[in-house]
């Protein structure tokens, strides 16, 4: 059985190769893109910030499990916000019917 270090190195190489393969495919696809999308740009910038933070955090070699769990909380909160926003948009497009009051 390979040592944990060997496993980590192999995983790193595998990940890097997979990334290279998909980067090529994605770069080719992006050449056909003309749509400017603020959300996509935001996602891209978030990725850049994440990489920069990884370099910064990786300098001391520590991992904080609580910080990892906090990332999950961000997902839950953001999706809940999306659901609320979608509900508001639906109400704006199709206002809900007023409640029916019983005839006297």
């Amino acid at each position, binding site marked *: 059985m390979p040592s944990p270090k060997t496993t980590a190195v192999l995983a790193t190489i595998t990940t890097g190769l997979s*990334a290279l393969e998909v980067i090529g495919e994605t770069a080719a*696809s992006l050449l056909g893109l003309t749509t400017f999308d603020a959300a996509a740009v935001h996602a891209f910038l978030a990725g850049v910030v994440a*990489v920069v933070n990884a370099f910064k955090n990786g300098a001391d*070699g520590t991992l*904080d499990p609580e910080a990892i769990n906090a990332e999950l909380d961000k997902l839950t909160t953001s999706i809940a916000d999306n659901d609320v926003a*979608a509900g508001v948009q639906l109400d704006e497009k199709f206002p809900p019917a007023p409640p029916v009051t019983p005839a006297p």
Partner: protein
Amino acid sequence: MNRLHRYPIAAYFLLVVCSALFATSLMASCTSSQRADTIHAAVISVDAARDGFVAWDRDHQQSLIDQSTSRDIGLKALASYRDQRQPIMDTFEVAYRALALAATQTDDPSLKAALSSAGDIVDAVKKLMGGL
């Protein structure tokens, strides 16, 4: 037409995830703490998948509402999509929990499980974004 042309956010998502994976893979291979850096790389890839997914989710729900011709149809479309979305949310949770666990351990199985979970969520998000 290439499927990614119709889904610009999906294309950007792939670019972000792959850039993050590539950069952090290089980082991991150049430092002494292989395990910590490998977990960092996996966390970044899952974070990138999350950010791309959140942006896509917002746009997709908006498009469902735009395509709806009545309130009932809109409500049904949103409910149907959210049912499809739930397994993705569950997979994100598994991935983050596995990474948090791996960060507290030193054994090989926890690292393998965390990396597998991280790969699973990236694949699942790509599949959902490309298939809807």
